[in-house]
């Protein structure tokens, strides 16, 4: 059995696979700040239940897993993982905590081209998290907020967008409308990236893909369905095992 560990910027994912089948997985709400001995303890616990032959690490904090047998760059892992869940995929959108990745992949899940958002938090999971903070909306209740009146958030910059949100709040614009505006600004940032890579069958991975309202808006704007696995947060981790 191979254990994959994906230390992301905000969460850590663990997946156990045997012969290309997912046996077990877990998502921890702690990211790159996780201590190595805590990781090691977690691995020991899994080892009591399952025989682990090999450990593979990926993600922003992959170099923290010094006991891993293999380290895989997350872009490469993501392509492979997307291909595992959806054989027909030719592209991936991953909105993670740290950055947004858009990939073009071949039929074997090999990455042929990719774009990552630059030195900027706009359009990333962090941006959304920050907005939720200001709006005082619980992350777990996010799917309850929906509106047809989308507030316009014109700033592309996460820092400026923050003050824009505050000013909208002071104008008594309803929370859900502002949240929809935040979604729109994220989507508008990602769509040109997908256009640049000319991808059609797109897997949507990362935590943000769990947001049903955002996905619905995204699909409407793209005018097509996105391919979303049941657990979109483990795509990269699964891919790392399969590389």
């Amino acid at each position, binding site marked *: 059995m191979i254990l994959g560990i994906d230390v992301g910027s905000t969460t850590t994912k663990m997946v156990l696979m045997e012969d290309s089948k997912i046996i077990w997985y877990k998502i921890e709400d702690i990211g790159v700040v996780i201590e190595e001995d805590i990781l090691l303890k977690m691995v020991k616990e899994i080892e009591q239940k399952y025989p682990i032959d090999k450990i593979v690490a990926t993600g*922003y904090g992959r170099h923290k897993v010094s006991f891993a047998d293999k380290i895989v*760059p*997350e*872009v*490469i892992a993501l392509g492979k993982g997307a291909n595992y869940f959806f054989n027909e995929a030719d592209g991936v959108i991953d909105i993670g905590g*740290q*950055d947004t990745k858009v990939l073009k992949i071949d039929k074997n899940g*090999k*990455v*042929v*081209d*990719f774009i*990552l958002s*630059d*030195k900027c938090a706009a359009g990333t999971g962090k941006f959304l998290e920050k907005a939720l903070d200001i709006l005082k909306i619980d992350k777990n209740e996010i799917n309850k907020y929906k509106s047809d009146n989308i507030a316009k958030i014109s700033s592309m910059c996460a820092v400026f967008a923050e003050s824009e949100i505050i000013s909208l709040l002071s104008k008594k614009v309803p929370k859900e409308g502002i949240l929809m505006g935040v979604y729109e600004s994220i989507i508008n940032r990602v769509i040109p990236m997908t256009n640049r890579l000319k991808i059609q069958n797109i897997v949507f991975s990362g935590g943000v893909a769990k947001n049903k309202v955002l996905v619905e808006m995204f699909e409407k704007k793209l005018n097509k369905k996105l391919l979303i696995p049941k657990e979109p947060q483990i795509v990269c981790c699964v891919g790392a095992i399969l590389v």
Partner: protein
Amino acid sequence: MMKLKAIEKLMQKFASRKEQLYKQKEEGRKVFGMFCAYVPIEIILAANAIPVGLCGGKNDTIPIAEEDLPRNLCPLIKSSYGFKKAKTCPYFEASDIVIGETTCEGKKKMFELMERLVPMHIMHLPHMKDEDSLKIWIKEVEKLKELVEKETGNKITEEKLKETVDKVNKVRELFYKLYELRKNKPAPIKGLDVLKLFQFAYLLDIDDTIGILEDLIEELEERVKKGEGYEGKRILITGCPMVAGNNKIVEIIEEVGGVVVGEESCTGTRFFENFVEGYSVEDIAKRYFKIPCACRFKNDERVENIKRLVKELDVDGVVYYTLQYCHTFNIEGAKVEEALKEEGIPIIRIETDYSESDREQLKTRLEAFIEMI
């Protein structure tokens, strides 16, 4: 692999350059600071004066620069200005006069502020590449000659000019040889070593540069003969200059399994490509006029150059490097990307500044790129 002796010598010469420069100054030689590969150093050398490159590559001097300059401006411009304002660069402080040129908007307007801190002379570099523009440029080089003569009190004779043209051409010839050697597989030298060579070539005494290059080529020929060198994905860097202090991208590339085999930049081919053919001021002007910088209008030669370098150096992938807010190179990147993709040459575009804050993200991207190609 053993360290290259020539690179060790380079580091030693650089360490003692400050002292040497101030000694040369004491002997009565004038120092001309410059900001660009467009400044014809033959003219300066012919008057027994010393050219030194002043472009800033460090984050430390940016905060003081931002007291006067906007935050959203290229880090090279801010860092350069900051060095003068803080008086922390020995080369800047040694300069009797600084030569600027009308390359990009940012530099041009920054010079207007810098003029208050140090005597400056600005050369008009036309952005068009037609005959009329060349005429303007030739006149500018003639004006520079007059200025240098006035500042130094030395007449630039035909004989002196011939001597320095040959000398600077010698440097170019040696860099061509170095690039010839880098075509070998494995690559006989790391990109980080070559980058330092280019960076310090702007600062060192020209005779020292020639000596170091001659030693280096001998050593590299030996390595090639033995088949020694650096394996890894062969990377060509293209874009903005990486001046002394700014090694981030090359360090990351070579950390994640790449080896830089060429650099199409002012700290690269734009520094040495094309010889001065002839010994007149006009001949000198013509060579510099050809430098394919993105500040020029319709800079198609650059795209062709990149494609040629990819072939010659057997490059696996191109890293297009832009400093944040460098509009000229950033926009031209679209053309380069399109042209390379058409030929099936992998390219990744990186935009960064002098801070360390994005090192991990850059590593993620470059690691994936190198794995992909």
